[in-house]
């Protein structure tokens, strides 16, 4: 799995960092998301899929093998 993040779309909601805290975080100044691990291991697939699904800006796209 590879995470593609469309940063200009991000609205800084922080839903991703809440659902998958090891994979996403937020910048301190404006809350825009940061991808900590763009190729997470299988143990994190469920939470990453959840994060992509709840992103209110549809800014997270998953490319799955």
């Amino acid at each position, binding site marked *: 799995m590879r995470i593609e993040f469309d940063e200009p779309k991000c609205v800084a*909601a922080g839903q991703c960092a809440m659902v998958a805290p090891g994979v996403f975080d937020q910048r301190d100044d404006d809350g825009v998301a940061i991808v900590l691990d763009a190729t997470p291991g299988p143990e994190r697939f469920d939470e990453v899929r959840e994060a992509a699904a709840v992103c209110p800006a*549809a800014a997270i796209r998953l490319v799955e093998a």
Partner: protein
Amino acid sequence: MNRIVVVGASAAGLAAAETLRREGFAGSLTLIGEEIDPPYDRPPLSKQILASTWDAERLALRTLDQLTALRLDLRLGARATGLDRQERTVRLSDGTDVPYDGLIVATGVRPCRLPGPGAHVLRTVKDALALRRTLRPGTRLAIVGAGFLGAECAAVARGLGCEVVLLEPAPVPLAHAVGERIGQVLSQAHRDHGVDLRTGVTVTGVTGAGVSIEDGEPVAADEVLVAIGSRPNTEWLESSGLTLDDGVVCDEYSAAAPEIYAAGDVARWHNPLFGVPMRIEHRTNAAEQGMAAARNLLNPAARKPFAPVPYFWSDQYDLKFHAYGYLRGHDVAEVVEGSLADRRFLAAYRKDDRVVGALAVGMPPKAIRPWRQAIALSTAWKDLR
């Protein structure tokens, strides 16, 4: 369960359809959408689309490949007109009946209007593009309603050089939602940016030359935008026997009946976290409730109550709001960090003895997170202050 029908192809309906497939549902899955466009995102309509910083193509919630992978029976440009629960069919505007074993209702809302011709509303991409075409430097725009939608449009229109009159019946915009003092901060932001904000003004209709005002002089305008709230799209369910009360009434699982769930703007469900029924027109709720409804429909033996902390954001001028919880009907709003004068603050909202909401402007995420957590845990006010 072999056939699931999702009525409504926007954020909630799409989230439900995706979740059904992700959770392993392999049967036939019909997604019905009244608009002809594939699922697209609405929050940017009053922001980047109106400002012309994005093309409409950027609104697509999924690529065609992603939609294809869901193996949908996708019916776009089709409106649901009736529900027969005996036969278990959804009647469409073209006269066809779509059979279901499980149903998810995500038909959303439509804007309220005022009497008279020619006014804009803003709900669909078509609405946004029609309004955008009229906004030029010097265009006189009257916006009826200073809620979040009206306020965002006022900010964008000022950025485009329009003359903006913002008309609001309440003495302070959004006071019922965010509290009076924060409502006043928002009012000041409008005035600082040259918006002619008039409060305590009741608009009675659209005249073709502007709007008419109760007990007052008409307001002249080239264009009128009516942003006075929305109504749930439930007329098609009126003879279904489902309980309708400003939305489809659901239990804490988002169920309206054993085989029927509702999600998104149209659903009024009992949120056990706050102990009250609520209908939430927020983008994040649409996705979360669509997912919850799909899971509960698929796994009746392992249903989970839908108990979210509602969240919304709003962009106005250089201000970005993040609001968590259920602010309506709060007893007290108190600034707990920063200051209103700097327009950089975090306000907490109390109802009875617990914290029910938080609203942040210009605060770092780590300042906001503990408050969101406190709301999710129903924390007592005295333990935070």
